């Protein structure tokens, strides 16, 4: 049960982090969104057998993490949550793709190379997405989406879904607490009550969401979400974006670890 309470609190933790005042937090939401999008595009643009060339891109999350003062364990915990799904997606590759490829002088099966590549790419992209929310907050992020002319209904849907996750979790937490108090010797929830439990959860969450919506309407909500953010892009924002994009381009065009290795070993590239 405490896991659920932790989960609900962790959603609030993202909002808490987004309210910090670091250099990264002060950047315009659009800058952070554009930089993250550029990062994602460059990460996924690498060849499916590429492993070594991906490593320089680790610099982006490390620097953002440090400058924004976000605890590393916070990101790692969330990554651990997502990694089983990634393993599930890529685990068949080593079994299906047996042809041998050469990476920096090491012979490795193509299946293992693609699996490691998927693992790294998803880890990098998920970290970048978490960092974006943890340094910007969903409210300001939706403001950036609106600047990009993303349809109002889509942005609103995203924002309310994010808000309703905590509503859903709270209701689920209450139901599970009530269940566990009347079934003290059981591990988990008996499969016989899964149906009624999920039904209860949906009805209760729906009713709660409806009351929240009523409260919004009574305070003048007509479909346009206004969070009061109206910041202008600054010179700093432009420099931040350009430096990162330049770095991503260099990392994409040149295999930086190989170049460094060659320079150290004194071998021409």
């Amino acid at each position: 049960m405490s896991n659920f309470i932790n989960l609900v609190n962790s959603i609030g933790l993202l909002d808490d982090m987004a309210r910090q005042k670091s250099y990264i937090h002060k950047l315009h939401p659009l800058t952070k969104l554009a930089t993250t999008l550029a990062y994602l595009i460059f990460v996924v643009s690498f060849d499916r057998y590429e492993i070594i060339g991906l490593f320089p891109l680790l610099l982006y999350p490390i620097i953002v993490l440090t400058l924004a003062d976000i605890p590393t364990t916070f990101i790692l915990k969330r990554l651990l949550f997502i990694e089983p799904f990634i393993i599930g997606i890529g685990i068949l590759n080593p079994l299906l793709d047996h042809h041998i490829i050469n990476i920096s002088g090491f012979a490795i099966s193509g299946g293992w190379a693609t699996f490691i590549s998927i693992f790294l790419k998803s880890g990098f992209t998920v970290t970048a997405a978490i960092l974006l929310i943890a340094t910007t907050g969903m409210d300001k992020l939706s403001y950036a989406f609106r600047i990009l002319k993303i349809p109002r209904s889509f942005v609103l849907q995203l924002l309310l879904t994010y808000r309703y996750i905590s509503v859903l979790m709270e209701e689920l937490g209450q139901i599970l607490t009530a269940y566990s108090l009347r079934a003290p010797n059981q591990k988990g929830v008996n499969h016989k009550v899964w149906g009624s439990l999920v039904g209860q959860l949906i009805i209760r969450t729906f009713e709660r969401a409806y009351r929240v919506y009523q409260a919004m309407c009574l305070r003048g909500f007509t479909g346009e979400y206004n969070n009061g953010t109206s910041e202008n892009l600054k010179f700093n924002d432009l420099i931040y974006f350009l430096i990162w994009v330049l770095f991503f381009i260099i990392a994409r065009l040149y295999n930086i670890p190989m170049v460094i290795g060659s320079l150290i070993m004194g071998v021409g590239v």
Partner: protein
Amino acid sequence: MSHHKLEANNLHFIYPDGHKAINGLNFKIHHGESVGIIGANGAGKSTLLLLLMGVLLPSDGEIIVGDIPLTKKTLSMIRQRMGMVFQNPDDQLFMSTVYDDVAFAPRNYGLDEKEVAKRVTDALDMVGIQHLKDRAPFKLSGGEKRAAAIATVLSTQPDILIMDEPTASLDPKSRRKVMRILESFDHTKIITSHDLDMVYELCKRTIVIKNGEIVADGATTEILLNEELMNKCGLELPPTIQSCPVCGISKKA
């Protein structure tokens, strides 16, 4: 001050399942009045409040705010003049900080950020939670949540404040604090509650509802001391004026 009056004429409401929640209510509330609406569970109090705010639309009859009948077209204008605090503050607080929650309505009404900031500061000062403005609402205590929920409504500077069970689930100190906040609001107040002591202290007029009908409407001091009426409506005398449980002396006398 006729623009602040609230009137219900022959008000009826039937839920989709056929349950008749409100059966022909008639009343008029004038500017500055504080009115308590009491009744047993299921009497129709919460439904009445939802009707007054236009969340539900009457099956029959009409509601007039000022001189404007409440219809779908006038809803937005009327809601700017009336504020409702829900029974459960968790339903009312949905933003990531208390500040953003209190600023939600002023921003929706198109005020500029300077005016929004002023409204938020004033509302938070009124309920005494200025220090909580950057906190996440779900991390607040019950009393703090209630104060924040009231602030979200006060920031719209309503002419009429409607509250559903404002003191429910509060500890004695928090309850007293909420009562002081309500006391300081000098416009029209409509409060539904089972906390009859609070109604006795804050409301000069009381409307008693039973099965969706008005059973009594008059001075609180008369209605709440009418033991026969209270028993008939599934209620009791307010605890502060019941007989002393130790010596048995009636405080009513």
